[in-house]
């Protein structure tokens, strides 16, 4: 399994997908930093809870803020497209058949793809952390107190300041939890790839499910179905920025996410095993 995952990762490198993903992360960070600079300039004289707003918008705040749109929009899109290309694309173009003519178990092939795409999504998240924090440190300073805006991070109107001594840990936790969320996305895309066997269908269906769930979860009058939406428990990364991390709730949401991941993988694996190539 490890050897097969390694081979799959080499294939990914040869396809230069790393560069594409990294390019998108760089582009996104550049645009975000431009927005952050302008925001900082316009609010230079403002004070939040007695502290200068400009001081609170440092490298850590920048890196934390960058993760939010990336994990909501950018990474799901990249992961969906790359997983669909890797799995459904090879099924569609015949390379999967060439592989399955070898004495290799379909479960191994399926799980090696899953691990490979998971590692790739970690690479993207870590690349964003590295690029955004480096960029933010140079432009806004390496560290300091960080202001947390509830409407950005927590889907509520709260606003508070995290002290400098905890912010770096919170940043690392936030990105670690985001890595976990990407596993969920990879598993969902793997399942849909195995079921549809077509690149375009996989992308449309997985992103359709993902974005529809998020849109519905933002509509309060649909609150009765919120608990059943597949993305309901996905944004566990936001627990990291809460002053006192609610470990019970985090554990609860993670458990549900793991159940989803296992279900996706079992259904996807069975579908892939039954696929006629």
């Amino acid at each position, binding site marked *: 399994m490890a050897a097969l995952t390694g*081979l799959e990762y*080499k294939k990914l490198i*040869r396809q230069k997908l790393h560069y594409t993903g990294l390019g998108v992360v760089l582009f996104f960070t550049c645009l975000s930093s431009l927005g952050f600079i302008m925001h900082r300039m316009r609010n230079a004289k403002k004070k939040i809870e007695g502290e200068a707003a400009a001081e609170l918008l440092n490298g850590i705040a920048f890196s934390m803020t960058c993760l939010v749109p990336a994990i909501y929009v950018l990474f799901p899109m990249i992961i969906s497209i790359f997983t669909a290309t890797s799995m459904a694309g090879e099924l569609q173009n015949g390379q999967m058949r060439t*592989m399955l003519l070898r*004495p290799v178990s379909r479960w191994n092939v399926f799980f090696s793809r899953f691990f490979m795409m998971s590692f790739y999504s970690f690479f993207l998240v870590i690349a964003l952390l590295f690029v955004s924090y480096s960029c933010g440190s140079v432009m806004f300073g390496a560290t300091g107190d960080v202001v947390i805006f509830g409407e950005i991070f927590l889907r509520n109107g709260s606003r508070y300041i995290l002290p400098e001594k905890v912010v770096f840990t919170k940043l690392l936790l936030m990105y670690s939890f985001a890595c976990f969320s990407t596993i969920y996305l990879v598993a969902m895309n793997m399942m849909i790839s195995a079921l549809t066997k077509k690149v375009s269908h996989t992308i449309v269906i997985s992103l359709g499910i993902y974005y529809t769930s998020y849109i519905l979860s933002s509509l309060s009058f649909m609150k009765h179905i919120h608990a059943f939406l597949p993305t309901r428990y996905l944004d566990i990364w936001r627990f990291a920025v809460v002053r006192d991390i609610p470990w019970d709730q985090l554990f609860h949401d993670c458990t549900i996410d793991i159940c989803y991941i296992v279900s996706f993988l079992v259904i996807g694996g069975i579908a892939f095993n039954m696929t*006629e190539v």
Partner: protein
Amino acid sequence: MAIKAQHITKSFGTFKAVDDLDLYVREGSVHGFLGPNGAGKTTVIRILLGLLSPDSAEVEILGKDLFMSRDQIMSQTGAIVEYPAFFEYMTAYENLYYLSRLSGCADKTMIEKAIDIVGLSKVRNKLVKTFSYGMKQRLGIAQAMIPENKLIFLDEPVNGLDPHGILDIRNLIRQLSENHGITVFLSSHLLSEVEQTCDYVTIIHKGHKVCEGKVSELMKQHESIEILTPDRELLKNLFARENLKIFTEEDSGEYSRFLIEGSENIVPPLVEKLVNNKIRLYGIAKHQKVLEDIFVELTGYKKDGGPDRA
């Protein structure tokens, strides 16, 4: 037997693609699997390779049960199914290396040898996306050979190739069997290819086996004698008396052309009889039916094109 398959049946919805087909392929032979487009050839190959689940089948490949020991079988079996599909962003060598790693045996010497046999040594380090279709077919055969496979399935291997490419692939297939002792199971709808390349042939039509045997014997069974004579009625009377079977009769005005049952050893006594009965003879010769005639006869295909669906 390299392949012993019995009662292969496969349906897609209400359409029965393969119906109770038996197949026997001898070790070390080149076995042709012939049938018109849509006859079920690729379906059978996919079943034999474990890529498709049959409705029912008993398949033994290289002495092992396909459904119990597929991995063991696949470690000695290679194939190209439908078309050669590779990782286009890798070189020819890297593709073979990657695929042989999947077989658990990445021997560089073996890969080099396979590349050499199929004549791709000069382009081994070029990306597959720069390859022509013919080169991909060759690479497909190379990947089917490694790691030291004993049985190779080639599904329509000369499809899309130019005449030079076809000739090269034919020679390569013969070479694999004769020089390397590899059993080759080759499906095709090209009769000339099977006639010139294969030792044995199985002909299928609409999912049913219509004929099986050694190509040379099959051709011999379908030998006939061609007679050109202006004395049409006299000849027919003589044949009626002698109980000789007339296959076809064509009248071209000045004389008639008869194809009668028999091989070349009946020509001398037949000439004697014709002369004794004062039947004028414009010509007499052995008529060798080509596989195409046999195929048409067995599958009900009309020479003017299209299958006889009646």
